[in-house]
């Protein structure tokens, strides 16, 4: 009997082993610092696809800063959080880790794994506040990292399909509706959207609805408690999402995110509401695809004065509080906050730099960036409502799926969102 019990225990212990993955390791005594003047900085990242580009970029840094060598290592994105957690807890971790932004950064800050950099790094004041917020501690308001990139959300469109059908980028809501109706009449799917993947839903909601509920102004009101997500303006923005269903593929609830990318890049759909991170994907999947982007025009009764591109910071570089090379690490972070590095991010990584004053040689990127400069808003649920459990995005995503299935209405989804985030969020008047 005992043997049977043990073999059963062995069989079911997989769950516990899974948990072993996040086992905190005991702090190890720091060993003596390396001798000599030359310093090697260990930099960790989750961008395995950018290893070559980063090596090129850090070559520039090494040339300008003799005596410092950068050892860049990248790990699988999906495994990175666990690897970093273990690395920062031990003595063998990176000097300068790439860290997540906003709420996902807080566990590292709360555990005291990163050094505040407000007094160490120059140029932080030039960075947009909503982007820099992604590098701050929620509790103490200190800055812990230099933001790397900005992602903007907008509507991409297939220029060739627009041209063939005599369509133009809409500037008013009526034109936007007319455009989609015309596409429907011509038998072209107006928008490709992967409703089966819940995380894409809040992105779509902000692309079509942020200006309706009022973007940054609404953000302030929700944070100070004068409004909630049950506010009529927010509900109306979700109603716009519901109304867009007729412009999506029939059976869209079964379409995955990757399916929707193929739908757009293969020319089966005219538009793709998505993040700037799609630009590189589109370019590699369909190099001949002629794309542009625009901000969805102001819907009726919109609270925002202008159309907006919702945006958020994506990735930061920080200093490990256990690093033995803090001086060199500070030197590197200062360089990461310069327009010189920002331009390299734009040119070599094809990302929007968080540092102002950067130009983009890629036309699609420059167009999206110019639009963002004309009207910006926070990607609200990511920027402000990822600081507790459940995440705002994790609540709204499935709710919007239910809207598309016909199992939920806009008001019900808004209430569910408010109930969800109320588990941990308290407004600060």
């Amino acid at each position, binding site marked *: 009997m005992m043997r049977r*019990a043990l073999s059963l225990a*062995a069989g079911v212990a997989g769950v*516990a*082993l899974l948990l072993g993955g996040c086992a905190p390791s005991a702090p190890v005594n720091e060993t003596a610092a390396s001798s000599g003047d030359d310093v090697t900085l260990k930099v960790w990242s989750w961008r395995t696809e950018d290893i070559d580009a980063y090596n090129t970029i850090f070559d520039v840094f090494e040339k300008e800063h003799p005596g410092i060598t950068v050892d860049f290592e990248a790990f699988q994105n999906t495994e990175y959080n666990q690897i970093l957690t273990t690395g920062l807890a031990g003595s063998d971790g990176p000097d300068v880790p790439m860290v997540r932004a906003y709420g996902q950064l807080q*566990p590292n800050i709360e555990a005291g794994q990163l050094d505040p950099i407000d007094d160490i790094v120059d140029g932080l004041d030039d960075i947009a506040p909503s982007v820099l917020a992604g590098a701050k501690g929620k509790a103490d308001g200190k800055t812990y990292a230099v933001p790397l990139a900005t992602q903007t959300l907008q509507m991409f469109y297939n220029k060739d399909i627009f041209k063939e059908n005599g369509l133009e980028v809409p500037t008013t809501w009526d034109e936007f509706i007319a455009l989609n109706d015309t596409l429907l009449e011509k038998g072209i799917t107006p928008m490709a959207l992967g409703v089966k993947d819940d995380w894409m839903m809040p992105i779509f909601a902000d692309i079509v609805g942020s200006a309706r509920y009022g973007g940054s102004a609404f953000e302030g009101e929700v944070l100070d408690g004068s409004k909630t997500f049950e506010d009529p303006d927010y509900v109306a923005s979700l109603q716009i999402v519901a109304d867009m269903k007729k412009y999506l593929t029939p059976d869209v609830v079964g379409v995955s995110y990757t399916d929707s990318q193929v739908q757009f890049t293969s020319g*089966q759909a005219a538009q793709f509401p998505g993040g700037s991170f799609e630009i590189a994907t589109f370019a590699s999947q369909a190099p001949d695809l002629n794309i542009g982007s625009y901000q969805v025009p102001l819907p009726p009764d919109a609270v925002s004065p202008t159309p907006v591109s919702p945006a958020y910071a994506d990735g930061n570089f920080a200093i490990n509080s256990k690093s033995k090379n803090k001086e060199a690490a500070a030197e590197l972070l200062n360089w990461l906050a310069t327009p010189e590095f920002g331009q390299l991010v734009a040119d070599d990584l094809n990302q929007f730099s968080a540092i102002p004053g950067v130009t983009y040689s890629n036309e699609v990127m420059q167009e999206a960036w110019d639009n963002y400069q004309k009207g910006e808003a926070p990607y609200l649920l990511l920027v402000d409502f990822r*600081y507790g459990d*459940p995440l705002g995005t994790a609540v709204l995503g499935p*709710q919007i799926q239910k809207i598309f*299935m016909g199992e939920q209405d806009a008001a019900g989804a808004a209430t569910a969102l408010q109930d969800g985030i109320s588990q941990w969020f308290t407004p600060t008047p």
Partner: protein
Amino acid sequence: MPVTKTRRSRHTGITLSRRAGMVFVLPALILFVIFILYPLVTALSYSLFDWTGIVRGDFSVLDNYVTIFTQLPYKDAIPNAFVHNILLFVGAMVFQNTIGLGLAVLLHRVRRFKRFFQTVYTLPYLVSPLVVGYLWSLMLSPLFGPVNAILKGVGLDALAQPWLGNPTTAIWVVVFVTAWQWVGFPVLLYGAALGGIPDEIDEAASLDGASSWQRFRDITGPLLLPAIGTVSVLTFIGAMEAFAIPYALGGSAGNPAGATDVLSLLFYRTAFESGSSNAIGTSSAIATLLFLFIFGVALLMTWLMRRAERRLY
């Protein structure tokens, strides 16, 4: 499965001293303690503390357990996911003990190409469940998938639907794909058990005039009971721990709208994707409860099967 009661091997006559026996057991025991017992116990201990990231805070007794039963999203997500795990178990049991057993009996009686078909039925079992899941999700895609295309091609347009996007069909797709992948396992086990039943019994019953169905019901069936018990317990464990196929078909959130959520996905989300700084505490509580449930029910099932076997023979 008889448990050897003496350490002395009847076949070789070699006698091991108690100490020598322990030495042989030791390596396995060390591995078991390091990789199984230790994580199990630590998971239990983690669940009793309050965590800030990876820094352990105060001893919180059962706070984490109270949280997962009283707070959103857990108080809704746990029952939802649990029901799906049970559906997976029931679905797999039905599939394996009808089609799986049927195939095994068929292969046992019609011995031609037995090996070939055994291999064919076991093939999906050899492919990673993640791969199986992704292949099925491609086949069921409403945009590019062949399943709907075939249905429409033969005029069954009404049946073509977003299989994985419709909450009422999505969980059944998970059940079906899981059963499809695992059907080779009971075919093998039942095949081996059938091979172990002496032909003489069957022949004797046949001479006495028992029909084919009577022979199956009164002879083969009862003699298969130990195999059915083993398959049931392993199926139960597999269904409660299901992760890879639900993940491949519906992502970590159990899309759409939690329709394919299972307990392991909920654990994964809580541990690695939640916004909670106490993720270790709550996820450990979920893991501990899941373990205790699986362990308890598996022991109970084993005990019941033993009792049933004893009554039969």
